C-alpha cells in the first residue's frame, strides 16, 4: 500500500497507509489526521480539505478540473501553485512517498 505523509503547520507529521482508489481526503479522515475538515464530504463544495503538494510530485497528480479550480479560490489559507483539494485526488500506487503540507486554516 502506498504511504502518504501529512505535515501539520507546526511541522509534526504522520505517515499513513493510503488505500488505492480512496481520495487523499478520505485517507486523512479514516486515519484521524487533524487539519482536514472536509465539511462537504468530498463534493468539491467547501474548500476545507486544502493541501499543499510537494512541488516535485505535482505532475504525479491528475490535472485540476474546473470545479476544483474554482473552489481553490475559496480556501481559507492562501492558495499557492501547489494547492489542491485532497478530496479530488485519488490514491494510486504512483503516489507512494507523497508529502502533503496542511494549511494553517481550513475554515
Amino acid at each position, binding site marked *: 500500500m502506498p504511504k502518504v505523509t501529512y505535515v501539520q503547520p507546526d511541522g509534526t507529521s504522520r505517515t499513513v497507509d493510503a488505500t488505492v482508489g480512496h481520495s487523499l481526503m478520505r485517507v486523512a*479522515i479514516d486515519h484521524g489526521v487533524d487539519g482536514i*475538515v*472536509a*465539511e*462537504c*464530504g*468530498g*463534493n468539491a*463544495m*467547501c*474548500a476545507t480539505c486544502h493541501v499543499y503538494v510537494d512541488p516535485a510530485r505535482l505532475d504525479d497528480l491528475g490535472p485540476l478540473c*474546473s*470545479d476544483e479550480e*474554482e*473552489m481553490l*479560490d*475559496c480556501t481559507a489559507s492562501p492558495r499557492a501553485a501547489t494547492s489542491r483539494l485532497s478530496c479530488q485526488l485519488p490514491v494510486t500506487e504512483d503516489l507512494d512517498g507523497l508529502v502533503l503540507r496542511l494549511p494553517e486554516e481550513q*475554515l
Partner: protein
Amino acid sequence: MITLDDDPFADEILVDPVPLHRRLRDAGPVVRLGRYDVWAMARADEVTQALNDPETFCSSAGVGLSDFRKETPWRPPSLLLEADAPEHDRARRTVTSVLTPKVVKTYRDTFAREAEKLVATLVERGEFDAVADFAEAFPLKVFPDAVGLPAEGREHLLPYGAMVFNGFGPRNHLFTEAMARGAVAREWIAEHCRAENLAPGGLGARIHEAASEFTDEERALLVRSFLSAGVDTTVHALGNAVLCFASYPDQWARLREKPERSRAAFEEVVRFTSPVQTFFRTTTREVEIGGERIPAGEKVLLFLAAANRDPRRWPDADTFDITRRAAGHVGFGSGVHACVGQMFARLEGEVLLAELARRVTTIELAGEPRPQLSNTLRGLASLPVRVR
C-alpha cells in the same frame, strides 16, 4: 431479499422514524417496500454508493415516489434536483458559481448581527416557541434578504416548501393537505423567481446574471430551487438543534464551553436528526448493489437519515455528540446532487447556535414538542422552551 410491509410515510412512523430505520438497515443492504412496490436502501455504504452513481441511480424521473416517465409532475421539474447530466451539470455549475464558499462568507457579519438581535429578544422573553420564534424567524429573515425578496409575502415560503417536500411522497393526507395549503403560495413564488422582482445584488439577481445562456423560464426555475429548498430544511435543522440541546444538557454545556464549536455542533445535528430524511432515485439499468440485483426502471428509496445512524459506519451512531467528526454524513446528500446551499445552511447554523451558546446557560422544555409530519422532512411544528 426481505420485503417489509411498513409504510414509511404513515403518521405513526413519521412521528418517530428511528425504529423503522433500524429495521430497514438490519433487514439487509437492499430491501423491498411491499406497500409501494419500490426498493429501499438504508445502510451508509449503499446509500452513499447510490448517491455517487447518478448514471445508474438517476434523478430525471423524479426524486419522489412519482415516476415522471409515467405521471405528469405537479410542477415543472427542477433543473437541478430533478435532472441528469448533461443538462443538470450546466445548471449546477451556474448555481455553484453564485454560491461559492467565498460568496457565502460575505454574509457572515450580517448573519451575526441578526443572530445577536434575535437571541437578545428571546433571552429577554425567557419563554418562547423555539420553532416559530427562533428556527423559523432567523432563516425567514436572513435567507430571503440574501436572495433579494421583498419583505411582504415571505409567509408563502414555508407553505410552498411544505408542498415541495410532501410532494415527494405518496398521495396521502400529508400530500393533499400541503397542496391545498400551499396553493396560494404558488403564484407568489412564480412571480418572485422573475428578475424584475429580485433586488439587485442579491443571490436571485446574481443567478439571473450568471445564467445568461438560459431562457427566461429556465432562469426563473433556477431561482425557484432556492425558494423551494432553502428555508424549510434550515428551519427544521435549527428546531431540531434546540430539541437536541434541551434533551442533552451535557452537550449544551460542551457548546457553552466553546461556542466556536457551533459549526461542528450544527453538523452533528444534521447527522443525528437528518432534516431531509429520504429521497428516491430511479434505476437506468439493471444494477447489482449490496449483493442484490435491481432491474432497470425501478424506484429506489434512499434513507439518508438511516444511513446517518448506521452503526456500521458511525461509532455510537444513536448518540448525539457535538465533538464527533460528523463530516461524511449524507444529510446534505452526496455527489453531483449534494445540497447546493449547504455552505449557506452551515453558516446560518454556526452563527445562530454560537450566539445562543454565548447568551444562554440552560435550555429547558416548557411544554411537549409537537412534530411537524412531512413525507420528506423531519422537524417540529412547535417547541416551547424556557431559557436562562
